């Protein structure tokens, strides 16, 4: 099939009406389509949450693992079978809360995967507690009296650790999001796209409209190769407008490039296994 419909599956979507996840899913299918991918060539990994249900609604390979733990699984799958286009598409609680340590170290490891974070500011599936990106002071079920921690800034964090592709998308800007997704999947190395995804049920402040009034696509005046400029952009918030687009971009060796001991092109998944081949390792013990 040559339309994005080759990625369709018959599966009822457990998302609320009006949820940004629908748009995100549609954009992802379109991006894969434009990249000419076939279902069996793509692997989407996710954790647990509303966002994390995404791979159930698209026909590709799916590793729907534990809450917070999709990044390590995704990196390993890519290492074992480099032919797969590996994408992590999961929630902000998943990526930055429970999975924060893996986020940090996935940047360092630089495996060639794309990481799409559905940033809705809340834990949707567990009914609206604050996610790490929610603003200080907002009351939620679970944070009576208001959030007491500063919001996490994932883009600034990624830039601080020199991630090679750091971007922000918005479900209210479809074409822009599709192209971001394409670029992230195409990028060789770990690519982060934090996606502003309104949750009309639990996040009554950061609505589609609220974002529409604030987002500001980065134009030619921004040089994504300039790390300090990128860092400054990543700190921009409500006042100066919320920048969307590729904030930082840099080419660097991937994990596979650094795996010098594996012959280029040799995939672990295709390795022939033979116990006798290991006999040589016994030699030094005689």
């Amino acid at each position, binding site marked *: 099939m040559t339309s994005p419909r080759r990625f369709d599956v018959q599966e009822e979507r457990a998302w609320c009406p009006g949820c940004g996840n629908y748009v995100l899913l549609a954009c992802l299918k379109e991006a894969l389509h434009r990249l000419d991918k076939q279902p069996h060539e793509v692997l989407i990994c996710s954790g647990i949450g509303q966002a994390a249900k995404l791979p159930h609604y698209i026909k590709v390979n799916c590793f729907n693992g534990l809450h917070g733990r999709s990044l390590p699984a995704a990196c390993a799958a890519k290492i074992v079978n480099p032919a797969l286009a590996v994408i992590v598409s999961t929630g902000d609680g998943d990526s930055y809360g429970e999975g924060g*340590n893996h986020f940090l170290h996935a940047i360092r490891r630089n495996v060639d995967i794309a990481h799409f974070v559905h940033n809705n500011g809340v834990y949707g599936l567990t009914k609206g507690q604050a996610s790490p990106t929610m603003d200080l002071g907002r009351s939620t079920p679970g944070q009576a009296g208001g959030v007491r921690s500063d919001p996490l800034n994932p883009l600034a964090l990624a830039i601080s650790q020199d991630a090679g592709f750091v971007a922000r998308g918005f479900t209210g800007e479809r074409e822009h999001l599709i192209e971001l997704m394409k670029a992230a999947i195409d990028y060789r190395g770990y690519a982060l796209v934090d996606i502003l995804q309104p949750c009309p049920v639990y996040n009554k402040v950061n609505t589609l409209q609220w974002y529409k009034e604030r987002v500001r696509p980065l134009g030619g005046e921004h040089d994504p190769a300039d790390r300090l400029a990128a860092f400054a952009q990543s700190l921009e918030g409500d006042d100066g407008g919320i920048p969307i687009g590729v904030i930082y971009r840099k080419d660097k060796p991937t994990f596979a490039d650094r795996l010098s001991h594996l012959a280029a092109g040799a995939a672990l998944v295709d390795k022939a296994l033979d116990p006798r081949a290991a006999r040589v390792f016994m030699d030094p013990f*005689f």
Partner: protein
Amino acid sequence: MSDYNVLVGGAAGQGVETLAALIEKAFHRHGLWVFGVRDYMSRIRGGHNFAQVRVADRPLHGPRRRLDAIVALNEETVRLHRDRLAENGKILSDAGLAVTDPALLSLPLERTARELGDPRVAGSLALGVVGASFGLDRAIVEGILAERFAGETLAVNVKALHGAWEWVTRHFPLPLGPRPERDRILVTGTEALGLGVLAAGCTFSAWYPMTPATPLMTFLSDRQGEAGIVVEQAEDEIAAINMALGAAYAGARALCATSGGGFSLMVEGLSLAGMTETPLVIALMQRPGPATGFPTRTEQGDLAFALTAGHGEFPRLVTALRTPADAFRQAARAFNLAEKYQLPAILLGDQFLADYVQSLPPLDFGSLSIDRQLLDPVAVGPDGEYLRYGLTGSGVSPRLLPGKVPGQVVMLCSDEHTPRGNITEAADVRTAMVNKRMGKQAMLSREVEEPEFLGEDGPVLFVAWGSTYGPLREAVEALNGEGHRVGALVFGDLWPLPTGRLQEKAPGKLLVNVEQNHSGQLARLLRQETRIACDRSLLKYDGRPFTADDIIVWSREEVL
């Protein structure tokens, strides 16, 4: 030569390990059977570390209490171990140490080393002394140095060896037999296990450093280039197991290795392996707990935990490693069973087994086979939709690797799922899926291996598991030699528990569980699964391994 036991002791950083390993290899290369244990503190320098090298002209299975010689790198070594020295035993130590003892053979090691211009050759000097004392073949010992050092360093070490050799009069005139061919290996439990892992075709392994699992992963890491595999140090144990699961999903044979604390962090991932039916092998190398406990010592305290670790109910294989040779074979078997039944397999080792070194006949790589039970991609046409969790007659769903068949996708799902692998909330699907998963447990229970029986049928039957095999075997043989009709059942497979041989052997006997823990976890498991209760318990939980002597003395006093 019947049975010699040499202790090498000193502070961390003084080279106890290197010297002991050289001595072991020297004896080994003479066709003697070696058994060496390590006793290290959890620190990098200072403190007190020691190794015991036992040598005999027959296979050995455990450490011994009595010492025939002490090689003391510091005074503390003599102070701490003197009481175990046999009547005509010898203490070899540097003349610079403040040791006065009738058994002392005072050697100018440090001085000579300084003269040779390299303090680090003290080890080779000591090796020379030991080699000469035991009447070893100098060419063989030199060969061992040549395997470890090269160039200048080798030259000075050889010089040291020669010097020491000449200096020593022969204190233990040992009629060593002819030098046999190299038809035996000298390996630690870790090394044998590592060889088994490589033989099993493990291609991906993720870990986070933790004693006593670290040596296994270092072993694999050191060989990753030659073996063409990936060994990845993760940011934490949670990442490690989730990486291993991602790798297994994608088609690797995947391994994790850790100790209790790290395993605790992995159990959510273990549960994921159970739910998603992803094959995985975990080497759980036990050390005394709880929490950080005794990082460098031994215990069998995690059996009960391993049996039910992880939330929810799912099938698993739990197999204890009894000896290095067993570790080699079980590793290969675990990878096969994990893939055959699509479940996690836990190999239960411990610090004693991981670190002791033993002479063995070569491991038989030819006897191993690799049995992946993957679905042939051509069997899945693009028309029929592949169902990862299909409810087939066989009781095991067909496993396909992602990316291998155009048009087909492979769904892995942590929630309860439909045959395709999508989230479901249906009660009947749930029931069917639980039955399928737990049914694999029943299938597996039909191919677990009965415990090994040692000794003779008689009034006393020991039951044990894992690494106590060695000391217990020596104890049983010794007691049998004394005319006591005692036997032992030593479990390898523990879950599903094989119960046949126990049920056959136990009736009418005094049952004694011998375990390296406080609560008698095997005895509990036997009661749970068979209602057979142990009558007495020999338990040890001070972090030091059993010796055969411990078991013999206790048995004579308590049950014989």
